[in-house]
């Protein structure tokens, strides 16, 4: 970890840090957090902290993010009164109701997308990391892109 890294990201360009990542930083590595199948086929990700991220972010923060994601996915797939009602209603209307209604799962997916964006803006981008929404990887992995430390050079815009 470079000691001046926080200073680099916390100056006037902090509000634009996400843009800068894209335009200036190059990718050092990618880490893929795999699925955790111990509770069955429900979508859950492993909370094991990848060694490549040790220098960038604390374990607590990372685990917190993954745990929240897991809870959100569990909510999406929860079997309860609401999902049964939705299922029965769908069956009775010969499933044509899904043409006009959004399913419960889709609603939660939107919540997840928002959460990931928020995490990226507040926590991951300032540390030169980027989370990719698992839905873009077929719910198989949480892809974390690690950007190279911008220690010097190419400070000002393009």
């Amino acid at each position, binding site marked *: 970890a470079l000691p001046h890294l926080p200073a680099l990201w916390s100056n006037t360009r902090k509000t*634009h840090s*996400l*843009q800068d990542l*894209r*335009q200036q930083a*190059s*990718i050092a590595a*990618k*880490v*893929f957090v795999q*699925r955790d*199948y*111990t*509770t*069955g*086929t429900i979508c859950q990700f492993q909370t094991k902290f990848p060694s490549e991220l040790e220098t960038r972010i604390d374990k607590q923060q990372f685990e917190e993010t993954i745990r929240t994601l897991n809870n959100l996915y569990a909510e*999406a*797939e*929860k*079997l309860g009164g609401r*999902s*049964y009602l*939705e*299922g*029965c209603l*769908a*069956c009775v209307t*010969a*499933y*044509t109701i*899904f043409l006009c209604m959004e*399913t*419960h*799962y*889709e609603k939660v*997916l939107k919540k997840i*997308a928002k959460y990931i*964006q928020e995490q*990226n*803006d507040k926590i991951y*981008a300032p540390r030169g990391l*980027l*989370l*990719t*929404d698992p*839905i*873009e*990887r*077929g*719910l*198989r*992995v949480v*892809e974390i*892109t690690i950007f190279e430390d911008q220690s010097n050079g190419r400070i*000002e*815009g393009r």
Partner: protein
Amino acid sequence: MKNCEYRQIEPQGLGTPNAAPPPPAGANDADTRAKRRRKWEVFPGKNRFYCDGRIMVARQSGVLPLTLGLIVLTSCLFFVFDCPFLVEHVTSCIPAIGGALFAFVIISLLQTSFRDPGILPRATADEAAYTEKQIDDSASSSYRPPPRTLEVIINQQVVKLKYCFTCKMFRPPRTSHCSLCDNCVERFDHHCPWVGNCVGKRNYRFFYAFIVSLSFLTAFIFGCVTTHLTLRSQGGKGLITAVQESPPSCTALELIVCFFSVWSILGLSGFHTYLVASNLTTNEDIKGSWSGNSGVQNTVNPYSYNNIFANCCAVLCAPLPPSLIDRRGFLPTQESPPAAQPQVELPVFVGKSDLTVV
């Protein structure tokens, strides 16, 4: 300083080498949308897409036209030749019930055939490389299971996950690769030629609704035709005359089709009801994965809730998962011809109003 004319875009909307493709809603300009290609156009599996990616079927549509044709023909014959007589002599509810059943059957059939059964998109190049690296790292140490399988413990049951060479990933539990469609499908049940599609996690409930309603429909038509003939022959004319009075080929056709269908479809419905109640797939049942054939110890189905009602609810009324292949999403703008993979990543410059599209 910077005269930033950009607008804050979602991180996923930005492209870098090997970054994620833009979201389906397209954070980019509308005027380039017309020239951009959608992901279904470069889909690597053997599927066919219609209506700009809204409808998908397997490459070999199998006997779906035959299935549709038989159902529509038999029902039409029923409505034209049997209904008038029965409305007069029995009750006028008959066409109403028949109509409702017929509509339900057709809708379920179309839902099963045209939906994404739960296809898993193939791994991106980075993911595949990462997985290969993990496999190589683990293979270097001695006495491990063969590197191309991964063991996980689900509800105290050991499950082996296989590596799919086509899709370049370890298959999740209950996922199988369909050779006809060349896709990995989640909770793979079977590939149904009658329906012209795989039956998997996302369309199993429609398939079940289809076969159950079809059993009711065929039984109903069979019953009505039999009643029709019985009533006619009771008029003192005898059965043969009765058959000759109503157009003979039609009634005979209906009887034959329904007779054979009733037994086969009822049987199939019964089998699938058993599968639903025990939370099994046809694939698992045929292979005997959980009946102790493969293992020494007692293997039980780790996915079952051990309660018929709970299993039925989980299989038929669970929240419908979304399609993972995002077939109507746009490919990122690119400067080279698209690769075989559905996700191609190239730089996208932000802050400019016109994106270059080749």
